[in-house]
């Protein structure tokens, strides 16, 4: 048996919708097999992973807290990847956005009024955009591979954050634990329904960003430019669009959204700057972007689903003793299956028996 691909004359609209669901189904099957291999009941494992977190109000709140940053970052990555710019350093931009914005409450703790929070959000976007501007500049000006440079900058950002919270920004009253002071209320993103759970307005920002970017990509000339350059740089030149400009635009837009996610996480969920502020949101958001078919609205659904795996991982650990690390395995498998299923949009897949290959003379 052999697999052969036959190119479709037109992309399959049906598979565009169906492929993420098929991928999800395949991930569930593979996940069940992993559970079985670990000696756990697969049905129970899947229940705790994907259903249990949805049964309680507080954990639905948690879901939005985790989904918010994933959606924000992924929405920016949609624009990047659509334009064929491979920013995989969102994790670093997330950190640098959080760092620049946290400078306000940490360095000027007395500055507390209605401007504090909006200013912090703007600084977060600026920090992320500037940090994403580095690989953009290196690509545009020096032709350096943006995949490698943006990724290297993640390690640099992590080390920089570590240095800050252990060094000059450490809370003097923090008993030598790394971490900044706790942010005052004026520098904290408020919770939506504080009596019920931890969901904060960062999630609303994420939804807003997704809708705006979706409209921008689908209906405006600049959005058209993103898609044209991504599909064919040569056609982009013919249309009079600048590939170099697009490198900066897409990187800095996605950097800004990652930075916004960073400060929204620090200000809304954590309440202070710590040495680790992300469980790998910047990388998981890559999966979110692809699972959402590089469509910002798709990213909302995909972001919620990936957030669910974080919560489900905790639930499965508590109930069945399944390692928390299974979460990353699930996420990795999901991306694999998503990419595989996307092939069906462009190609028809044929299984060819051994009979045809064995023609004899």
């Amino acid at each position, binding site marked *: 048996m052999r697999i052969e691909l036959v190119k479709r004359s*037109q992309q399959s609209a049906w598979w565009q919708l169906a492929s993420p669901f098929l991928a999800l189904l395949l991930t569930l099957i593979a996940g069940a097999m992993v559970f079985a291999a670990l000696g756990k009941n697969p049905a129970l494992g899947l229940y705790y992973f994907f259903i249990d977190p949805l049964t309680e109000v507080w954990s639905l709140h948690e879901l939005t807290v985790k989904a918010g940053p994933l959606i924000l970052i992924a929405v920016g990555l949609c624009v990047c990847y659509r334009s064929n710019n491979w920013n995989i350093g969102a994790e670093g931009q997330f950190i640098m956005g959080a760092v620049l914005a946290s400078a306000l409450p940490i360095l000027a703790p007395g500055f507390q009024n209605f401007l504090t929070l909006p200013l912090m959000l703007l600084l977060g976007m600026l920090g992320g955009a500037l940090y994403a501007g580095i690989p953009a500049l290196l690509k545009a000006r020096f032709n350096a591979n943006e995949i490698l440079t943006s990724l290297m900058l993640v390690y640099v950002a992590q080390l920089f954050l570590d240095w800050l919270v252990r060094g000059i920004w450490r809370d003097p009253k923090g008993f030598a634990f790394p971490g900044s002071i706790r942010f005052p209320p004026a520098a904290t993103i408020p919770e939506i329904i504080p009596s019920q759970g931890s969901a904060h307005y960062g999630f609303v920002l994420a939804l807003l960003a997704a809708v705006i970017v979706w409209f921008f990509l689908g209906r405006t000339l*600049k959005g058209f430019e993103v898609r*044209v350059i991504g*599909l*064919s740089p040569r056609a982009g*030149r*013919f*249309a*009079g669009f600048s590939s170099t400009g697009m490198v900066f635009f897409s990187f800095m837009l996605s950097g800004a959204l990652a930075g916004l996610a960073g400060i929204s996480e620090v200000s809304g969920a954590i309440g202070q700057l710590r040495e680790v502020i992300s469980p790998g949101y910047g990388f998981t958001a890559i999966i979110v972007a692809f699972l959402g078919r590089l469509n910002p609205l798709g990213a909302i659904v995909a972001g919620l689903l990936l957030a669910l795996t974080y919560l489900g991982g905790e639930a499965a650990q508590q109930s069945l003793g399944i390692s928390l690390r299974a979460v990353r395995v699930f996420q990795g498998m999901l991306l694999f299956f998503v990419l595989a299923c996307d092939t069906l949009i462009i190609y028809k897949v044929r299984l060819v028996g051994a009979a045809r290959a064995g023609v004899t003379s």
Partner: protein
Amino acid sequence: MAFGTTNKKDETAMLEASGIVKTFGSMRANDLVDLSVAEGEIHALLGENGAGKSTLVKMLYGSLQPDSGDIRWRGQKVSIPSPFAARHIGIGMVFQHFSLFDSLSVADNIKLSLDREFGTGDVAARARSLSVEYGLPLKPDSIVGDLSVGERQRVEIVRCLLQNPRLIILDEPTSVLTPQEADNLFVTLDRLKGEGRSILYISHRLDEVKRICDRATILRHGKVVGHCDPRQETASSLATMMVGTSVAAIRRESNPAKGRAMLELTSAAMPASSPFAVALRDVSLSVSAGEVVGIAGVAGNGQSELFKMVSGEETLPRNDMITMMGKPCASSGINARRRLGASFIPEERLGHSAIPQMSLTQNMLLSRHGSDRAAFLRFGPLGLVRNDVTLRATKRVSEAMDVRKSGDDPDASSLSGGNLQKFIMGRELDRQPSILVVNQPTWGVDAGASARIRQALVDLARSGSAVVVISQDLDEIFEISDRICVIHDGKLSQPMPAGEATLEKIGLLMGGANPGHELPVAPDLAHADASGGGAH
């Protein structure tokens, strides 16, 4: 005629294919095709683009497998599972889009097609002796990426001959050659034929088929529509067999009075932007309202660079090197030039003038968002796309150019080459441009669509626009041009009125000859003539 020998009717067939069927998706590329090639004959395989010629020869060379049908090789039924198998039984092939490796040396390229283990030195020596024997000069150590198209074809042919094939398949071999280079090739082919080898010659150039081929098989829409002796036919009777109906000739009034200069290039120069690009040097040209200027040339001599320079896909530092409608614009981008009234159609449809994965209305926007901003977009800087307007424009263009498509607004990739090119042509004509620059307007387009496109170009000029047609198809150049110039190695020759241009004059310029200078390819020519003469 120097090349005609005896008619070989009762010869045993070298290769016989019968009932060949090959289906791609829902399309029958080959439908019960029969073909018989006799020993020692040059057999033409004629047909339009998309008639199924390439599919058929790929099956004979083992790159594709037929769904059904038999292939007999010297009387024995065979299957040809791979190109290795084809070469093993004695079938060689010279590809149209060469199957060479740019970054490797000539010797390495040759070695890769040989199936047994050779040392590089041995291969080089044998290649050299073969190239001398057949008058196909080669330098085994040079890197293929640095060679001209003609030289590359020689590599392909020598590589094929090293296998000592009994049947040689040549796919559109002259489409990349100057007329003189083509003459050399015919001498070589005649000599191979004299050695008893068979040649399957694929072409759509009817005059050369008439000149060198003993028999012809004609394909249309995947079916064999006739066998004939091309020497007994006229070019137009062959064309009618190929196309099915007779193709309307281009209506063209005589050269009108010269209008004002619309497009002027003044000593324009552009350095090569990549290692594989050609630098343009001292390009001067003035195109007036009402005329079609044809630019002939062999592939890879700077045509795409010239297009980039004139269109503004690449800009020049000195603004006055190019003027359009009297305004200097060499430093302005493509959309600024479009706003001056110019339109551009590049050679490559998929991924350059159109995006295959996008719908026709989106492709409408591709070249016209700048020039038709007021109509296609609203809300100023926000640039909201008016889908209703672009859809109407797509309909208008499709009707005007008779674009056959499935549905109202399909993806560009679902259109045939001819229909997509008609759409692209219509997209630009819809603006009624004052200047139109087009590269290879009918490349890979069927005869019906070609005729329509050429007529549209002539009509546009006669309505008062300036039209520049860059083309490697000399028939096309002669058919529609009022003046003709030639691009060679990044330099443009002086334009000559079409009435004064002959195939020979243009061919010499395409080969790089300058009036008063010696022909650079002369040594090769002499060599080929000498060995060719020996065969007679």
